[in-house]
């Protein structure tokens, strides 16, 4: 009995003790200690991972087509193990139950020996194709942090995501040589919404469902961990850094090009699903009507894309100064492009704006929309393809002399079709004009402190559609046969139109912009260059990695384009003159917002068609501790052979300079032309980025195979005029050979 009382007392005491413990209030201090015990924390250590095959199966072709990574090896750096940690926590937030996931993977090296395209049905043309090798290595931990406010996927409640892939190296290899993304950064911190939608698939977006609330994705710059000059303090590379290097020796690769993006972007969206319905749909602008808004034209030949395949998209708007979302903490978007490696220079672009400056002719109605990039709809399929159709616009149709707007091209062999990995892009837009640019130096040399003046550059792209089919193909270079990557590319751009998604006038152009302040104390926005570029490129051949550089051969190359050579002010700018100097027509007068649809600024138009075959060698710049722009530059070497003329009515390859006059009766066109271009032309271009100057050094050899013993193939052409629509021959001309070199130095101010 005594024993029982004692036990009861003990039980009561224990219960009371627990009760009182439960009642004790937790201080902040103790909470911070306790949190570690909450949720799940997994620490994992591995010395090596080997995967024989990891295949992605495209069910569109009864599951017989696979894209696979074979012989994958993942190991730690410097013989150490790979440590990964995963912390998972669930907690109450003011919106509901939030999730916190934090992951980190210590530096590792991953290699994929073979990237395989497999087809295992009886009808397959090729059972196995080796498309090359892949590698990925990191030097700092790869970190991922996600914090949601209500569930894991929720369209209406905010989540925060940090992703830190810093100073990584991603390589693609062929024949023991690699094209590498050195110091690759994909470093961002984002607020937005993550959700799953029956139509859109998995989506991450910064914009709320009603579109009224937007958030920032900050592409924070990353400390540069290699080759930094002693004068530099806190040397950093862009948050998204694409630095292309090339060569066999991983420690001493040569320099190709560098691109980067930093700062805050907004209205960003990434989606991923498997819906292939849009693969056949091309946006196009109907030139015959007055409405220049994009409309959909569907092409045939895409029946292979059914249940499988990937469909994804990425888009974001670039911020500029004055954007209220930026606040005190975020910097506006800057883009960089230039040469890379020791002692190199590049150009940084800022003050990114869309094409139109105002929304109407009202001087106060400023366009506050942002410049943006929208990769459109990207589709990835593996398939056995016999032929594909491609939609072209009226201008391209006219240049090609095509019967319809729908072109058909065939794969090899035509009867059975070719097993390919097909990457298709529909309606990619890059509507950004930088009104300020400056030269910047690589972190390996001292910083440029002097200002670069007030100038900018615009390479807006509108409605880019492309089909890129990849397969394995052997090729011969200098008598040696090697394995290469075969390609078949069709690509087009739209010159001008109204974008269907944004409703904004959009263009494909290459223009320089004067971003200095004009008489009205705002950017004057003079532009000059090629605008409204309608183009179509069709090429098939092989890409190979050679000791000298990247070798691209086009067995059939067709490049057609039309563009306007123009000078003016960007649509919606204020004419740079005052009432005092230019009369009443100058008083705060706005340049028409459909200026790019008018001919007022056009000096003349050019159109050309190049049809033939060619070779191109991309020769990277040499790296070294004493490298300068004179020794470290990108060069392109190549040659082009015009296709033979098939008969007297065949215009062949040609170049036209066109004058279009707008009359009350309509637009009339007159032109001067070089038709029936024939010959075998060689060229070499060097692009030298210097401290304040870009030098374009180009050499053309008119008959590049001619030598002391052989006359080669003389460059010939037919000169013709078309004063009123009918082509009238004026003369024949011939250039028997020789070399011409043009060296153009551009120093912006």
């Amino acid at each position: 009995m005594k024993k029982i009382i004692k036990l009861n007392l003990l039980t009561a005491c224990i219960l009371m003790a627990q009760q009182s413990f439960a009642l004790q209030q937790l201080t902040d201090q103790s909470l911070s200690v306790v949190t570690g015990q909450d949720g799940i924390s997994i620490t994992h250590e591995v010395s090596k991972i080997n995967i024989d095959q990891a295949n992605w199966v495209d069910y569109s072709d009864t599951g017989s087509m696979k894209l696979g990574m074979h012989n994958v090896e993942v190991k730690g750096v410097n013989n150490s193990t790979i440590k990964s940690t995963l912390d998972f926590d669930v907690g109450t937030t003011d919106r509901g139950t939030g999730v916190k996931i934090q992951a980190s993977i210590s530096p590792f090296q991953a290699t994929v020996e073979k990237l395989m395209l497999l087809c295992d049905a009886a009808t397959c043309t090729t059972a196995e194709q080796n498309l090359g090798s892949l590698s990925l290595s990191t030097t700092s931990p790869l970190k991922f942090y996600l914090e949601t406010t209500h569930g894991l996927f929720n369209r209406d409640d905010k989540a925060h995501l940090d992703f830190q892939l810093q100073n990584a190296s991603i390589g693609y290899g062929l024949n023991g040589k690699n094209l590498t993304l050195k110091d690759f950064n994909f470093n961002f911190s984002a607020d937005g919404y993550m959700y799953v939608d029956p139509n859109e698939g998995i989506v991450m977006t910064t914009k709320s469902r009603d579109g009224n609330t937007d958030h920032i994705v900050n592409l924070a710059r990353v400390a540069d961990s290699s080759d930094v000059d002693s004068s530099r303090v806190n040397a950093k590379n862009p948050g998204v850094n694409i630095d292309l290097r090339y060569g066999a020796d991983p420690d001493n690769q040569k320099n190709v090009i560098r691109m980067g993006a930093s700062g805050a972007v907004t209205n960003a969206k990434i989606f991923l699903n498997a819906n292939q319905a849009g693969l056949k749909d091309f946006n196009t602008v109907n030139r015959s009507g007055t409405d220049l808004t994009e409309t959909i034209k569907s092409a045939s030949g895409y029946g292979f894309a059914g249940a499988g395949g990937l469909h994804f998209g990425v888009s974001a708007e670039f911020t500029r100064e004055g954007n209220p979302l930026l606040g005190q903490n975020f910097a506006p978007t800057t883009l960089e492009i230039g040469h890379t490696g020791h002692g190199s220079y590049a150009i940084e672009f800022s003050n990114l704006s869309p094409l139109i400056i105002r929304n109407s002719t009202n001087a106060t109605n400023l366009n506050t929309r942002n410049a943006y990039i929208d990769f459109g709809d990207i589709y990835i399929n593996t398939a056995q393809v016999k032929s594909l159709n491609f939609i072209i616009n009226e201008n391209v149709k006219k240049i090609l002399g095509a019967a319809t707007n729908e072109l058909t091209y065939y794969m090899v062999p035509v009867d059975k079709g070719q097993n390919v990995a097909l990457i298709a892009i529909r309606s990619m837009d890059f509507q950004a004009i930088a009104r300020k640019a400056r030269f910047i130096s690589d972190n390996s040399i001292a910083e440029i402190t002097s200002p670069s003046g007030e100038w900018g550059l615009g390479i807006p792209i509108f409605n880019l559609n492309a089909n890129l089919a990849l397969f394995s193909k052997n090729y011969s270079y200098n008598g040696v046969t090697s394995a290469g990557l075969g390609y078949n590319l069709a690509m087009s751009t739209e010159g001008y139109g109204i974008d269907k998604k944004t409703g904004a006038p959009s263009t494909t152009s290459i223009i320089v912009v004067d971003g200095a302040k004009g008489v009205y104390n705002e950017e004057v926005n003079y532009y000059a260059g090629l605008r409204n570029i309608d183009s179509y490129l069709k090429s098939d051949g092989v890409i190979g990695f050679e000791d000298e550089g990247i070798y691209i051969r086009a067995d059939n190359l067709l490049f057609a384009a039309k563009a306007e050579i123009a000078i003016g002010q960007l649509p919606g700018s204020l004419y740079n003159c005052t009432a005092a100097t230019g009369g009443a027509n100058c008083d705060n007068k706005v340049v028409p917002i459909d200026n790019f649809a008018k001919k007022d600024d056009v000096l003349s138009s050019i159109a050309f068609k190049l049809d033939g075959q060619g070779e191109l060698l991309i020769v990277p710049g040499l790296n070294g501790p004493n490298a300068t722009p004179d020794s470290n530059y990108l060069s392109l070497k190549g040659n082009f052979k015009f296709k033979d003329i098939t008969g007297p009515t065949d215009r062949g390859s040609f170049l036209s300079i066109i004058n279009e006059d707008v009359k009350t009766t309509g637009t009339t066109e007159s032109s001067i032309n070089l038709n029936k271009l024939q010959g075998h032309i060689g060229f070499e271009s060097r692009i030298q980025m210097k401290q304040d100057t870009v030098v374009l050094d180009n050499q053309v050899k008119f008959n590049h195979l001619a030598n002391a013993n052989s006359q080669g193939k003389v460059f010939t052409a037919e000169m013709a005029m078309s004063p009123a629509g009918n082509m009238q021959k004026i003369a024949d001309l011939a250039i028997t050979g020789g070399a011409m070199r043009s060296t153009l130095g551009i120093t912006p101010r």
Partner: protein
Amino acid sequence: MLNKISISVVLLMCCATHAELVGLDNGALLDVTGQGGADLSWTLSLNHRYANDLSIKNISDQQGVYYTYDCVSDVQCRFAFSPNNHADAAGNQRWLVFKQIQGTIQVDKFSLAGSTIINKDMMPQTAMKLSFFDDKPLKIRNLGFTNLSVETDDAATKGYLKDEKYNQYNAYTLNAQGTKVYSSVDVPTFDKGGEKGFMGLNVHGNLHMSGDLKIFSYNCAGTGTSRC
């Protein structure tokens, strides 16, 4: 508190004074004059050493000049022009052939900028302004051709590929009987080895230009007496 305020005032004054004392540096001056645009330098060379060898950095240096003729074979440095289907009686096409066509031109600096003009309709319009400077002349070096000739196609060779040179000509002497005795004689050294033709041209010098060239578009509306 009063102290704090006075310290702030002193600090503010410091800042103000500091700002006033800062002089304009070169960079700031550049900002004032800069109106966008670009300074360009351009070298164009045809069939000269500079054109053939990309390792040559400029058209001349202390080691010598690089605007001299350089061609694998003379017959490959030609430009031929055949206007209006010009042909002989047998239908063979005739060509005007510029032999050993060559030249280098260089201008060290000219500027490109935008400018606004008032056009004939009293409306503002943008013009491309190219500025040339007196101290940066257009350098013309050995621009021209050695010989110009008219060549006709034959069954074997296109006219522009015919490779005929002045080496020897048939001369005769009269012997004691007064009969012509023919012999081949070398042409004078001036022409010896030269390609056949009737004239040559060589331009060498500096062209000094100063001023602005404004280029703008003009639409021929087809009204009134306009010819379009």
